[in-house]
């Protein structure tokens, strides 16, 4: 793709979380205290890693492991788009998540909850020509955040996306509709704009599911970047 005719505007503040937020106290010691330095967009930010099918590796798109994984089977499907709503093909999509008991396969997760030996908790693929990705997995469980009183993270799936430029890189989380924990989650609520928060909540869509087997959810994702000159029509 021709990178020189694309532009990457600064993020619109209320639609993105602040680096420092009282809702997520850990940010006090990790977020920079000095003001961010304005950076003119250069070829460094407007270019970015290009991925091919071989880069997706063998993690795969079906985390259910032949239905051996414990939990509520679900499919999550969505379209990755730029700010003009155009589908982004060959965008790398990665996801990782807790198991149905809210336990991660990570040594830092010290909570006493069961591991699921059949669940890797990670997947990766490239979007197709229409910008579409699709994973089969299980609905993750909620889990408590240590030393916070009694903050429980609502069920969520981590998403990592590479568009076509360094400037279009995104790491985010997908939440589930109707979960009361969404309202008290310091990480979701760190996004100031309500509409932007709502866009992090998947939409139930049985067309994405598998009849009598798997629930379906849609989660569309917009990455930064648009045409330099708006197209006519």
């Amino acid at each position, binding site marked *: 793709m021709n990178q*020189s005719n694309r532009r990457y505007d*600064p*993020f*619109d503040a209320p*639609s*993105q*979380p*602040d*680096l420092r937020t009282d809702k997520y106290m*850990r940010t*006090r*010691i*990790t*977020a*920079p*205290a*000095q003001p*961010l*330095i304005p*950076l*003119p967009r*250069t*070829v*460094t*930010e407007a*270019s970015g890693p*290009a*991925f091919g099918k071989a880069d997706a*590796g063998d993690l795969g798109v079906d985390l259910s492991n032949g239905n051996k994984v414990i939990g509520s089977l679900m499919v999550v499907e969505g379209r990755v*788009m730029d*700010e*003009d*709503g155009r589908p982004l093909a060959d965008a790398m999509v*990665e996801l*990782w998540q807790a198991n149905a008991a809210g336990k*991660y*396969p*990570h040594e*830092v997760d010290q909570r006493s909850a069961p591991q699921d030996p059949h669940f*890797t*908790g*990670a997947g*990766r693929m490239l979007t197709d020509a229409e910008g579409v990705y699709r994973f089969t997995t299980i609905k993750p469980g909620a889990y408590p955040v240590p030393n916070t009183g009694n903050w429980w993270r609502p069920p969520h799936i*981590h998403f*990592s996306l590479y568009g076509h430029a*360094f400037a279009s*890189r995104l*790491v*985010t*989380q997908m939440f589930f509709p109707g979960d009361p924990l969404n309202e008290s989650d310091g*990480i979701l609520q760190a*996004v100031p704009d309500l*509409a*932007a928060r709502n*866009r992090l909540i998947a939409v139930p869509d049985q067309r994405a599911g598998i009849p009598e087997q798997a629930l379906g959810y849609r989660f569309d994702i*917009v*990455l*930064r970047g648009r045409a330099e000159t708006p*197209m006519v*029509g």
Partner: protein
Amino acid sequence: MSSMIPTASQTLGPFYNYLLMRPGENDLTQAGKHAPGITISGTLYDGEGAARRDFLLEWWQADRAGTYADRPDAPFRGFGRCITSPDGRYSFTTIKPGAVPFDAGQGGNRWQAPHAALGIFGPGLMRRVVTRVYFADEDNGACPVLSAVPEDRRPLLLAQPESEGRYRLDISLSGKDETPFFQD
């Protein structure tokens, strides 16, 4: 033409899945296919001076001629990533990038000194922070991006040669010697 708002960022969290990391992802030379290799390494600290594990660092650079890869089968792909170790260490092995045009598209002829863009995700970071790695043994004086950094903070962006082919650069997310971060 529709106009859509980019999806909000959320933190990487403390439980990144290591299966997503391929062996050798922090080696841009592809095990020595590109030479001579250099290694840049250091420790990532938080605002309390604690070395921090499980931060994801992403490195993006041009090739020796100052050109960025734009396809998966480019000879030099220019991209690597690394997750900080339990003692907060990272390292990338790569080749020195060339100088990169700054304003060629607008008819200018200014150049950016050899550098890599570095994106950092991690627990406690609600969105990516972006910095750059320059090299102390290069002529950085005329780089228009480095010049935008307050002079007293510029040394914090310079990887220091330690021995043949080895550079060191520590990163501080906040606090004393806070690494200069750019608007993303």
